């Protein structure tokens, strides 16, 4: 019983790690904040 | 000579006529675009023969000067012997960031060991265009027909 619980916890932790790591790796297209506030033109 | 012809050939000692093993790969010196050594065997037991100890490469066998020419790979050679860097199967990447597929064969001069050309399924790149060899790719100078 205890072993089953521990195994499940390990699996959950592994899945969580993979999901979090995939998210940390996910990229985007970032636009720099304009140096002066307000309009960029 | 094509590398795929040489791969699998027996390595025979000139001094004793003993077969010392079979060619399983090559170590390339990217700076001078030359085969630096031949690999015998695979895995932990892999050995190498320096090109200077090779007396002849023919269509039947590779002949080396003497049995003792077969030695342990150095650290540099181990990148090839250990499989970090691929020769056949290595990715050809232009210095403009476009991949040209995987190496299917390498043509080389059987006397000097100098590379002549690198061949993929679709393209033959002269060895003079080779800029570096790494675990990720063989980087070659972009051809004229490649977009800027």
């Amino acid at each position, binding site marked *: 019983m205890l072993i089953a619980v521990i195994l499940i916890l390990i699996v959950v932790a592994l899945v969580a790690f993979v999901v979090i790591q995939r998210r940390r790796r996910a990229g985007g*297209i970032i636009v720099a904040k304009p140096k002066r506030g307000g309009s*960029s033109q | 000579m094509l590398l795929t012809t040489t791969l699998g050939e027996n390595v025979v000692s000139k001094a004793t006529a003993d077969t010392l093993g079979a060619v399983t790969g090559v170590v390339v010196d990217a700076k001078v675009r030359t085969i630096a050594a031949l690999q015998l065997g695979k895995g932990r037991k892999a050995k190498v023969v320096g090109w200077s100890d090779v007396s002849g490469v023919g269509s039947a066998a590779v002949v080396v000067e003497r049995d003792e020419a077969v030695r342990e790979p150095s650290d540099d050679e181990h990148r090839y012997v250990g499989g970090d860097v691929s020769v056949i199967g290595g990715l050809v990447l232009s210095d403009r*960031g476009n991949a040209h597929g995987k190496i299917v064969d390498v043509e080389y001069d059987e006397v000097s060991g100098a590379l002549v050309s690198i061949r993929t399924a679709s393209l033959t790149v002269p060895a003079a265009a080779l800029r*570096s060899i790494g675990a990720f790719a063989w980087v070659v100078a972009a051809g004229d027909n490649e977009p800027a």
Partner: protein
Amino acid sequence: MSGLLFRATDLNGLPVVSIDSGEALADVKDIVYSAEKSALLGFTLNKRGFLAGPMKNVLAYADVAAIGRDAVMVKSEAAVTKKADALVAVVDESSARNVIGNDVLTDGGQRLGTVIDVVIEVTSGDIVGYELTGDATLQAHAGRPLLIPIPATLAVSGTALMVPAGVEPFIRDDLSGFGAAVDEFRAQLPEGA
């Protein structure tokens, strides 16, 4: 206009490869650009490998040798190890400003669609426009990707892309006709704009 147009999202995940060593040094994480300068500033990086995390180092566009279909090429490893403080500062204050998914709004308050990509001329590092999915009301091509040249945009924030009302004639639905649309639009701008 000449050169090689790429979609910015095509660069996400490309390996960064050293010309000197043939080694892959990192993977591209974010593409960072300036809307003011309409220029690519550089990239944030991930370590290589399926489960490897982000890298602290960034890659400034000035240190990029070439951008191709399959890799971002740099001269040597120094390109990703040296300090690029200016770019790090930009990333620190702008990392949440992802333009993908931004609403495209006219200055008249109309919504035209959603930003799905940014178009880059990779040999110069110029940002030349935005790709969007148009709302059904926009035009006959609703549902197909549309392109707006960057001179036809006013500002972008990470939540919205602001464009002037009346921008529709300069919107194109294919990349090949896009260069001409950019030139056409520039020709309409007042001198010195």
